[in-house]
């Protein structure tokens, strides 16, 4: 069942905010506390707000289980692919090949205290994004599955 109109409106307003904040945490994992997992959890919680404010049937069309599962697998494949990139270049699995290389995310930082720059840290931001996508999908789909179990029980 839906919650009251006020909560629904509020959830709709909060969803973009939670999403952008989660993505901010994901992307700034190498500068501030946070990272792929935490940001993914924030995003998934944002989705949970919408799911709880509206009924399961309302959001089932917009936040779909299949998409979320695909997102999860895609995140994992991106993660393992990033790790295997080093294998292709002749280093060991999980080598940070992009760090200090000057290309994407390849700037180097001075040692010691500094405010930080987004475009650093090599493969770490990419892995953060991958894990973030995966956790986003995974936690959302867990919640959806549990709620779908609830629905089925009512039907029988």
């Amino acid at each position, binding site marked *: 069942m839906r919650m*009251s109109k006020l909560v629904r409106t509020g959830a709709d307003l909060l969803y973009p*905010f939670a999403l952008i904040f989660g993505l901010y945490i994901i992307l700034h994992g190498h500068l501030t506390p946070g990272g792929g997992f935490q940001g993914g959890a924030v995003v998934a919680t944002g989705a949970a707000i919408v799911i709880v404010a509206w009924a399961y049937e309302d959001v089932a069309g917009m936040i779909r289980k299949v998409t979320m599962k695909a997102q999860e697998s895609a995140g994992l494949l991106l993660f393992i692919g990033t790790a295997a990139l080093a294998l292709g270049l002749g280093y060991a699995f999980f080598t940070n090949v992009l760090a200090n290389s000057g290309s994407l995310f390849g700037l180097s930082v001075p040692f010691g205290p500094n405010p930080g720059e987004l475009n650093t840290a090599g493969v770490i931001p990419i892995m953060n994004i991958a894990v973030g996508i995966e956790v986003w999908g995974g936690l959302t789909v867990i919640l959806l599955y549990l709620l779908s179990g609830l629905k089925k029980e009512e039907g029988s």
Partner: protein
Amino acid sequence: MIADILVLACLAVGTFFNALGIVGLLRFPDVYTRMHATTKMTTFGSVFTALAVIIYGGASWLGTTDSQYVILAVHTLIAAVALAFTNALGSHAIARGARRSGIRPAPAVVDRLEEVYP
């Protein structure tokens, strides 16, 4: 110096209202009146403590022009806004849930929701 006094004042106000909120939480007779005391007054108090931090950040920024104090102030502002926003919605949701589950306002003089949720 002025910033000092302002921060201290905000902190004092915040602490005072938070403490009163807890006292209300413990004293009031039923869930709705408790909610008046706690969710509102603690939100108000917490926003005031956040305001103290914002003033501190602003004052330090004016003193040092170090951009980290801007970040401090802005992020605290966001936290305070998010807090107020979610608390308002949350207390509404709890009140509605409580009323739907059949808890009536205990010493109420009038209850217009009687006809909606008998």
